[in-house]
């Protein structure tokens, strides 16, 4: 029989351990609550010189850069001083993204394709960044930055062809919907494996630097996917080699049904992760077109000056579900999107343009109609080339192409086998 235990010495636990499991503060049936989100005044955060030392701006990772205030006025040092024509172009591109999303989701519900993912509420994240970057800069997006195409005036029918996997699909039906690719548009191929683009972007940027090029890379990753190894690889390599990259973290609060706490959002901000790698890290209102533009511009200039990478957390909200396969009412309050305290990116930029006398409700309504019509026309053009399983179809023999540069014998045999079997 063992001797009785002595009383616990100082420093020992007197109670049992317990495991913390993060849960969001709000669930279906309860009221939305964003009280934990600290929202400073627009213009409160200064704009450091582009060549500031990362160590001198650590507190920016815990702040929130805002330019547009709640009345639509642009405030503070981060005002990007864009002319009205540029702002209207930005508004148009964001509204076009939204109109495109609306149509494609309807098409999915009608059975014309298998799947779709909207970017509702996050249009400024992609559009403002796309406009702030140079046309030659390479973007490594997630599946929720389709706004980059609109910002770069890419024809919608080309995107639709991919979504429909139709006879006009440049990707030859190889990828599921919204996994676009366009070298010409500076939009790297989307992968379903989360985060892989982040570390690839750093490699691309390193190559550009090694070749004495002037083009930089920009990458996006979601709050949830920052838990992936590739996020860590990207920041490590970006830090080690001072890669000319803009590393965006799109914190839209949700990763399918998992709130940001599951990815570590309870303990600290996502921008703060950059501090650990010695990278300057900004935190920005992702629904403020002007702030997103200004932060991207700052980071891009910095990268081009050989000062390395910048981490930018875009604080935004995923207004709809993860995809057409998701129903967010099953895990979050039904009116949470409407309660998001940082508003809607389209409405806020429109409001700002109105406030500065460069827009009005009538023009807004007219633009919305024009874009809806444009999307419809593009849709007709695309659907004439087929939809998933209907109309003109791709040649199934092409399934065996491009596995390798030159088709090896075993694929030739398999292709014959498939075709002979008919």
């Amino acid at each position, binding site marked *: 029989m063992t001797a009785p235990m002595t009383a616990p010495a100082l420093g020992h636990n007197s109670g049992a351990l317990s495991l913390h499991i993060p849960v969001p503060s709000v669930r279906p049936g309860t009221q939305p609550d964003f009280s934990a989100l600290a929202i400073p005044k627009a213009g409160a955060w200064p704009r450091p010189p582009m060549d500031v030392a990362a160590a001198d701006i650590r507190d920016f990772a815990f702040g929130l850069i805002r330019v547009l205030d709640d009345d639509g006025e642009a405030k503070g040092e981060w005002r990007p001083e864009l002319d009205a024509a540029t702002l209207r172009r930005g508004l148009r591109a964001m509204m076009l993204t939204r109109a495109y999303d609306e149509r494609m989701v309807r098409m999915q519900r009608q059975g014309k394709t298998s799947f779709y993912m909207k970017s509702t509420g996050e249009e400024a994240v992609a559009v403002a960044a796309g406009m702030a970057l140079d046309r030659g800069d*390479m973007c*490594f997006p997630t599946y929720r930055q389709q706004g980059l195409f609109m910002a770069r005036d890419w024809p919608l029918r080309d995107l639709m062809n991919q979504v429909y996997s139709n006879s006009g699909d*440049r*990707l*030859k039906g*190889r*990828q599921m919907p919204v*996994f676009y*690719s*366009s*070298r010409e548009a500076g939009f*790297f*191929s989307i*992968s379903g*494996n989360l985060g*892989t683009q982040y*570390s*690839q*972007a*750093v*490699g*691309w*940027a*390193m*190559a*550009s630097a*090694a*070749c004495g090029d002037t083009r930089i*890379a920009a990458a996006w990753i979601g709050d949830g996917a920052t838990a992936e*190894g*590739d996020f860590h*690889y*990207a920041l*490590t*390599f970006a830090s*080690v080699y001072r890669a000319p990259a803009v590393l965006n973290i799109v914190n839209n609060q949700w990763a399918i049904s998992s709130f940001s706490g599951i990815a570590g959002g309870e303990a600290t901000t996502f921008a703060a992760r950059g501090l650990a790698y010695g990278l300057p890290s900004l935190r920005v209102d992702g629904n403020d077109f002007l702030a997103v533009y200004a932060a991207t511009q700052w980071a891009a200039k910095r990268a081009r000056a050989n000062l390395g990478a910048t981490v930018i957390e875009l604080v935004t909200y995923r207004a709809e579900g993860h995809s057409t396969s998701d129903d967010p009412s099953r895990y979050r309050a039904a009116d949470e999107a409407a309660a998001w305290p940082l508003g809607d990116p389209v409405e806020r930029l429109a409001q700002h343009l109105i406030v500065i006398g460069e827009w009005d409700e009538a023009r807004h309504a007219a633009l919305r109609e024009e874009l809806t019509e444009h999307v419809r026309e593009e849709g007709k053009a695309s659907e004439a080339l087929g939809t998933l399983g209907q109309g003109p179809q791709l040649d199934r023999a092409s399934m065996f*192409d*491009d*596995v*390798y*540069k030159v088709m*090896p*014998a*075993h694929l030739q045999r398999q292709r014959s086998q498939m075709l002979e079997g008919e």
Partner: protein
Amino acid sequence: MARMNMIQAINNAMDVCLENDPKVVIFGQDVGYFGGVFRATDRLQGRHGLTRVFDAPISEGGIVATAVGMGAYGLRPVVEIQFADYIYPGTDQLISEAARLRYRTAGEWWSPITVRAPYGGGIYGGQTHSQSPEGIFTHVAGLKTVIPSNPHDAKGLLIAAIEDDDPVLFFEPKRLYNGPFDGHHDRPVTAWAKHPAGEVPEGHYTVPLGKAAIVRPGSAVTVLVYGTMVHVALAAAEETGIDAEVIDLRTLVPLDLDAIVASVEKTGCCVIVHEATLTCGFGAELAALVQNHCFYFLEAPVERVAGWDTPYPHAFEWDYFPGPARVGEALRRAVER
């Protein structure tokens, strides 16, 4: 013509490629200033510069990811994974990204990367320095897998791999870096200097991918091998007196099936040898192919000699490593029917 061991041949291949193509860039752990733990990149940084040959963090995932990104930019990265045993963190970028980039973009992007790694046992390296993971990658559409067995082939195949626009895994049998090895571990080591395949042309040449080599013509049994097992098989043939036709596959994917079929149709039986674990090893694919394409020519079951289905042990190195005795038994089983 020069005499080189396998490490020197591999080093020379990279030197030639760095010289010929400004887009070639080499990185990995310890490969820069130090020249690699196996000296594979010895002196290359000094000759070609810091931004052409450099050290990378201990991050196989990051190394492969960065290579994919650089390849997308237009460079031709050749990365080293320090031991094939450590390739797994890079597996996602290899399988989910590099292997599929050309396919999923219908040729708009591709991944012209080469991933080199020392593999295989015979060195008392235990399970973290002796693995043969080729079977994982041969299963993945879009990847090529190449394994040399001698310095001459190592240089030519590596140059071919580097110049290939598809992602290539180049597994180097580390037991053969300094000399041939036929499994007789209690005999004095021999050097490549005395071996015909230690004669390596200077300058640029390639050994084509996708082509096997008949290293010993024969009529009694076909032996399909690669890497260190080529030498083990040759020793087994000599020691049993069986007239084996030993085929060094050299490239696993894409496979030279024509060479295999021609040989088995001639011999009527087949023995497959690899160090990798038996179950679902590349030998399983070879056995299925031989059975399917040569069924009416076979006079005996297809034999496989492979690593036992255990993690690679330390103390039992020579019980695990398929040596000439085990291979010889398989040859006898195949021909004595």
